[in-house]
């Protein structure tokens, strides 16, 4: 008998096979190992893009790298943050590629999607939150940044009400970054698993009906996998774009 919830949880949730070093427990989980592998792959890809060789492959990689950085600069950073965002281009390039590779890794069999873990997306959103606050302090100073939380033209007696609202709004924006990526990736993989499980659940009732259900279920599975591929790119793009917009709002708050 298939336990649907257990099967889905087993494939989606993280598993801790932590090691003990003396009395210290190192929480080594499937997600942390996957994240480490993705980081190593990204480092390799980055090095290949940065290398200036004469072979066709080297030139191809450096051209892809240049196009990618150009797209990030002209499509995300400058429209969102203006020319002031140029020093932060490297952060956005890293962020986009990391999220994209993490999302795509989940489509490889036996590899878990690390972005379906709220701790991972929360950490990424926290990095973006730190960047937003840093931009505010860098371009306005500490006092100026605090002043940006009060919109121009606000009557003085409304300031004690508006100030906390604006601060909470900023915190909510950062939370929303984490929740959106997490929810999209988690739900996508749950749908994929659920579609597969339909075959086995119906197959338990009747083998012929299970075989019949396999055809539409696999068709839907292929469609959803293609959709997941689109979502992987889209969510990486949206996360990066929103970070640049929020940072731009802080920079151009006057």
């Amino acid at each position, binding site marked *: 008998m298939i336990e649907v919830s257990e099967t889905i949880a087993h494939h989606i949730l993280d598993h801790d096979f932590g090691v003990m070093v003396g009395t210290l427990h190192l929480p080594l989980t499937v997600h942390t190992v996957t994240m480490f592998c993705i980081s190593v792959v990204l480092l390799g890809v980055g090095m290949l893009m940065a290398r200036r060789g004469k072979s066709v492959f080297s030139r191809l990689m450096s051209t892809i790298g240049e196009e990618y950085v150009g797209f990030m600069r002209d499509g995300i950073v400058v429209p969102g943050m203006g020319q002031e965002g140029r020093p932060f281009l490297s952060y956005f390039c890293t962020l986009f590629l990391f999220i994209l590779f993490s999302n795509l890794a989940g489509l490889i069999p036996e590899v878990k999607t690390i972005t379906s873990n709220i701790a991972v997306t929360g950490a990424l959103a926290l990095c973006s939150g730190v960047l937003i606050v840093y931009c505010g302090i860098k371009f306005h100073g500490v006092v100026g940044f605090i002043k940006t939380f009060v919109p121009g033209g606000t009557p003085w007696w409304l300031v004690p009400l508006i100030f906390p609202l604006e601060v909470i*709004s900023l915190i*909510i924006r950062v939370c*929303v970054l984490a929740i959106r990526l997490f929810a999209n990736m988690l739900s996508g993989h749950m749908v994929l698993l659920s579609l597969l499980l339909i075959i086995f659940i119906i197959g338990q009732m009747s083998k012929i009906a299970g075989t019949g259900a396999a055809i539409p279920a696999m068709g839907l599975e292929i469609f959803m996998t293609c959709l997941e591929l689109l979502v992987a790119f889209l969510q990486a793009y949206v996360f990066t774009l929103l970070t640049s917009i929020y940072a731009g*709002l802080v920079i151009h708050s006057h």
Partner: protein
Amino acid sequence: MKLGPFAAQDFAAISTLGLEFAVAVALGTAGGYWADVHYQSAPWGTVIGVLAGFALGMYIVVRQAQRMSAAHPTEKTK
């Protein structure tokens, strides 16, 4: 009345508004519920939390609308 033209940035900002509103209400509800549990004030903490969250959500939506109106003035507002 002609609206726009809108850029990808505008669409991203609009698409995030619903979630921001939901998170604001959820945050207010959670805060109110926490107050009810700790100060035995049920159901007033949750009621006030939900209303405060709703007000915060509305504030976020209106502020975003103001920003977009300022960035893309229509024929009426020019």
